[in-house]
């Protein structure tokens, strides 16, 4: 890893608590989390009091805090389930946010070393990205690597990185049909690389292990897309996929980079893919319609901030996707509300 000194005051770690007892999760992460401020948001549908071990600096938000902040807008965006963490994004005032699902623990690299996922995300976010030309040796700013012969010199200073997408060992983020068909499939391959996902290339952003520059792209992480029967397993949601498309479009438009690769986290076994499959899985069909839309989406030159971009995307969603399915109309509305909430949070 490069010699980058990490300023802990610039970072919030946001944890969406979908289970009451966070003890084992936080103990596993203690060597890393204890240096930072944590924002813990309890899923508003989760009844009871969270169990959080001692020795951490954290701010805790529960249903009453969420309701209090939303005020009259409490019918618009839902912060239940995995979306609870977005409230944490709203509350943060830091430059960088790192978010990790509460069923993930630190991974070990191929040499058996403990992977500090937070440090790696911060390195990714604080070094330039290179979205305009593919470097075949991956991240050129990594120690021991560089731009290869043929990489245009004018593109070598790179651009700011807005989003850092990490990966998962053990239970990878596969969809339910895939995991159901291959129940034994586990990800054991540690790919020692970070790379910039090229501009105008879409990708599925998994919310399980991400970091982002809140100052640059915060508003673009929108909790907008909910399935009717959304559940508490990643196999039963697509909220992060929708969010990821929005963030990628925004980053491409604002000439920011999105990185993918390291760090890995170790994702524990949870749930049953076949059970998830049995639920009505409308997300698949819906996302098929959504892909061409996002791939061809271009924003106007006057959209100069993430807020502007989100507003514009919302308007286009309303115009082009909403007529086909009311879930898109709701998504557009949520995105508009989100921008309002974001502005409100900034003036707190």
């Amino acid at each position, binding site marked *: 890893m490069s010699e980058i000194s990490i300023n802990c005051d610039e970072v919030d770690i946001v944890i969406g608590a979908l289970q009451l007892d966070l003890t084992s999760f936080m103990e596993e992460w203690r060597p890393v989390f204890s240096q930072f401020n944590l924002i813990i948001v309890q899923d508003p549908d989760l009844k009871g009091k969270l169990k959080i071990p001692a020795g951490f600096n954290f701010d805790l938000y529960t249903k009453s805090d969420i309701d209090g902040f939303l005020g009259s807008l409490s019918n618009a965006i839902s912060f239940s389930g995995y979306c609870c963490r977005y409230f944490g994004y709203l509350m943060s005032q830091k430059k960088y946010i790192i978010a990790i699902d509460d069923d993930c623990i630190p991974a070990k690299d*191929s040499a058996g070393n403990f992977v500090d996922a937070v440090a790696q995300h911060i390195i990714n976010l604080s070094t330039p990205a290179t979205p305009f*030309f*593919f*470097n*075949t*040796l*991956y991240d050129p700013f*990594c120690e*021991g*690597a*560089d*731009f*290869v*012969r*043929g*990489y*245009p*010199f*004018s*593109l070598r200073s790179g651009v700011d990185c807005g989003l850092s*997408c990490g*990966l998962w060992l053990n239970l*990878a*983020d*596969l*969809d339910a*049909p*895939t995991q159901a*068909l*291959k129940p034994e*499939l586990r*990800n*054991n*391959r*540690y*790919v*020692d*690389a970070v790379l910039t*996902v*090229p*501009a*105008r*290339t*879409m*990708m*599925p*952003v*998994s919310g399980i292990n991400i970091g982002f520059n809140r100052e640059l792209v915060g508003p673009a992480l929108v909790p907008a897309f909910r399935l009717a029967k959304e559940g508490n397993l*990643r*196999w039963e949601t*697509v909220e*992060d*996929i929708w969010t*990821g498309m929005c963030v990628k479009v925004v980053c491409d438009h604002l000439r920011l980079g999105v990185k*993918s690769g390291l760090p890995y986290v170790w994702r524990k076994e949870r749930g049953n893919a076949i059970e998830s499959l049995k639920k009505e899985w409308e997300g*698949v069909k819906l*996302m*098929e319609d959504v*892909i061409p839309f996002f*791939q061809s989406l271009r924003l106007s030159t006057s959209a100069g901030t993430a807020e502007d971009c989100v507003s514009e995307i919302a308007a286009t969603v309303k115009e082009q996707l909403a007529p086909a399915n009311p879930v898109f109309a709701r998504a557009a509305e949520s995105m508009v509300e989100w921008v309002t909430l974001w502005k409100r949070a900034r003036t707190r």
Partner: protein
Amino acid sequence: MAAIQASKSSTPLLKDELDIVIPTIRNLDFLEMWRPFFQPYHLIIVQDGDPSKTINVPEGFDYELYNRNDINKILGPKASCISFKDSACRCFGYMVSKKKYIFTIDDDCFVAKDPTGKEINALEQHIKNLLSPSSPFFFNTLYDPYRDGADFVRGYPFSLREGVPTAVSHGLWLNIPDYDAPTQLVKPRERNTRYVDAVMTIPKGTLFPMCGMNLGFNRELIGPAMYFGLMGDGQPIGRYDDMWAGWCTKVICDHLGLGIKTGLPYIWHSKASNPFVNLKKEYKGIYWQEELIPFFQSVTLPKDCTTVQKCYLELAKQVKAKLGKVDEYFNKLADAMVTWIEAWDELNPSTGLANGSAK
């Protein structure tokens, strides 16, 4: 769903469908190390430089060898498109091959070891890459979904999971990395020690610097695009041959709906060329490149370009029209591109195969 895992059975040898093309000016001693992996295959050796020199091929290899005299004899006046005193001459080997697949490797590239210490059969990995689909329309965060132990991630559109045919497999290098001269001068001791266990498709619409040191491709799908340009003796530029071919190939692959993969396999690159010599060869390219990249990034090919040759000739036209004013060299290069296609078609008649359909 990902395609059926071909890796459950062993990778086919393809020994009658693949030629190994090696440019050389010195000797072929490096083949000894590759013997266990290369011996089943036919080699096409393109001897650069002095044709009166005899290149010793280690015993036991089945090969054909072409020196400059042979190239001149076979191509006549069209031989002008084949570079002299530059490894770009290797593309003559592609033209003269009759096989479906080509693997090309430099004579200073040796067998690398993976992190477990096992020797890497680079050719086998290239074959795996070429025989499985690519996924250029949407980026899979777990890299090549067709590899053993991987798959498409949640959120990857099902309608895109069939993939497209793979035209090119671009391998990498441990030890001496493929840096340009300025970088070599600044970091003479840097070695690539990072083994990145991934293969991935380079997304549609994204360019990359292709390196010809360790490269496989489907000659039937993309062969005519693999022209390595005018380099070396009498030319103002060198070390841009493979990159030129790579940009043309990528644009054409994007147009025809074909995929290009990069990543594994690694070879061990043993020789660092002289950075001062390299700088002299490259320096014009460093400036010209700033014009070339926007050119390739904005190139569009008309819908009626449905074969590689048609695409390539159209590209040649646009090179002349738009890059001719950057330097006279590009007029010559555009002419050479046309000559190349003429020579290709002459040596490979009736390859009116479907090279992929223009999307």
